[in-house]
């Protein structure tokens, strides 16, 4: 392969069961610095479950994880974060009753002052939040608005802006553009591109083959808890990828009636 050095993050033979439900049946995967690795697959294939084990939300039932070639165990998301992994979860992990700023900084609040008088630097936090949001194409009314009252896309943008801002080594994005408008989507894709060029490894989950092809360096397809394999950019065409994701089923007939627009 083209990466003789250790990948930033490697997952080997990850299995995960919830009670009697098997969500992952042995999946391997690696994220390299400066690359965007796309994770694709049908609904319920296990993508979200997989990246949740990467970011320490739940421990895998079986399998090993390596960061820079060293085996690690992430017992909480905080450990994963401290290892430089930032994640946009599909459910966004936001607190509806709290303000945009407080959500943005949750867990890593900037402080000023010293000793016992160290305090949350609200002004700085507000300013950074507004700036990062407008970089993503959302102009907030006020940083104090509760996240629960934002529109779906606005909320998703907060989660993305937060992860990008804090994503030190690996940035995991679980369907980040699902609720976004055209402009915001473009801006997120551009951001992925920019961040990647800074040497961050990116894991990008999407159902949109065009988005995947636009920014992906590597493509892994999951199906029913198993990996169908990994391909590098250029080794696979958009059509092949589409076929793989959809399991090559009724898609052809549908395409006919809808004029190839999906």
């Amino acid at each position: 392969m083209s990466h003789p050095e250790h990948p930033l993050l490697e997952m080997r033979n990850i299995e995960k069961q919830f009670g009697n439900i098997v969500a992952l049946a042995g999946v391997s995967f690696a994220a390299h610095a400066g690359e965007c690795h796309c994770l694709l697959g049908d609904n319920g294939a296990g993508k979200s479950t997989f990246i949740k084990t990467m970011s320490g939300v739940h421990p895998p039932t079986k399998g090993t994880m390596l960061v820079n070639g060293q085996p690690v165990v992430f017992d909480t998301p905080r450990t994963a974060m401290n290892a430089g992994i930032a994640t946009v979860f599909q459910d966004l992990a936001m607190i509806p009753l709290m303000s945009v700023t407080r959500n943005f900084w949750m867990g890593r609040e900037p402080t000023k002052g010293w000793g016992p008088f160290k305090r949350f630097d609200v002004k700085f936090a507000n300013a950074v939040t507004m700036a990062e949001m407008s970089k993503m194409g959302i102009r907030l009314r006020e940083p104090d608005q509760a996240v629960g009252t934002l529109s779906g896309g606005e909320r998703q943008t907060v989660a993305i802006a937060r992860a990008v801002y804090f994503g030190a080594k690996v940035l995991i994005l679980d369907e980040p553009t699902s609720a976004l408008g055209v402009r915001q989507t473009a801006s997120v894709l551009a951001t992925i591109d920019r961040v990647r060029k800074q040497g961050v490894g990116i894991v990008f989950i999407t159902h949109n083959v065009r988005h995947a092809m636009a920014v992906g360096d590597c493509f892994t397809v999951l199906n029913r808890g198993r990996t169908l394999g990994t391909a590098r950019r250029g080794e696979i065409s958009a059509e092949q990828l589409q076929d793989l994701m959809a399991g090559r089923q009724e898609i052809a007939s549908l395409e006919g009636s809808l004029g190839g627009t999906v």
Partner: protein
Amino acid sequence: MNPPGILQSSPAVPVDERIKRISPLAKLMRRPELGAVAGLILVTGFFLAVADPVMFNLAGLVNFLTPAAQLGIMALGASLLMIGGEFDLSIGSMVAFAGLIFGASITVLHLPLLAAVPLTLAVAGIIGVVNAAIVIRTGLPSFIVTLAALFILRGLSLVGLKWATGGSTQLRGIAEAVQGQAFLGLFSGKVFEGLFATLTEHRWLPRFDNGEPMITGLPVEIVWFVGLTALATWVLLRTPLGNWIFATGGDPAAAKNSGVPVRHIRIGLFVVAAMCAALVAIITVLDSGSTDARRGFQKEFEAIIAAVIGGCLLTGGYGSAVGAFLGSIIFGMVMIGLTYTRIDQDWYLVFLGGMLLVAVLFNNSIRKRVTGER
């Protein structure tokens, strides 16, 4: 890493390879109430080992099942309301207030039983509607609204008792006033007395040393308790109404958006909870023949405890009537059981708290083990 070649070999997967076989036991244990069975078994085992064996002869069983049934009827109402996402802290005071209404309508207004019972239930129902209306109108948490009702009803019971008795806080003479009236047997006394007498005669039931039977029949509240549990279970699991109750408690906004008449459900549940308390008031007032201003003190609390032991979530949307049933029995058994042991009364509360905790922890760990959750 997998070479890209693998991409072509998509394996042909059978239909549900992603679902492991699950034992029928595990499937059963997934039901919220059945965890409480483990707690019940544990507590029973403890008393079997420690307590006087008379605790578990028929007289002993009835002895602790009677308060369990009185608590349980309230716990049923409380658990339905909790599943629907609300609390009613006023049901304890409601026992005193409904007892006053019932007692006063019999001794002061001289109404017959057949009028006093519906009147009492109606008053309770109206108070339930008022509670519900305030909660729905203002959007305030039901905790604080029914807490105010707790104080107000308790206070009104005191004032009303003084008014009805001319200065005392105890109203007597109710049992005498309704003696021999129609339908009395529905709310008072024992059932199956003939059967019990025959059984005692044949020495199948325990007697005192002088030959008196220890138990003469099944208290009527136990029949109500079992009947209402069955009814509530049927409603919850087998009717659209049950689905609406779960939905209302699970996420009222989502339920409303899906077309569930959330308001009506809430009002109905408050009424049911209040009426359950009133029924307990009627039964206990007839049983004791008197009522006083402290009746039902903290029963709201015990009802919620019983419901929670039985697996109801405080946050709503999850629970069962059978769970409340089992929870009440556990609670009643622990409450009375101490009497059958040689443990010092001073340790009662330590014992009660410890048993509760152990029962709930045991519940929980058994269920997790069986269903394989973590």
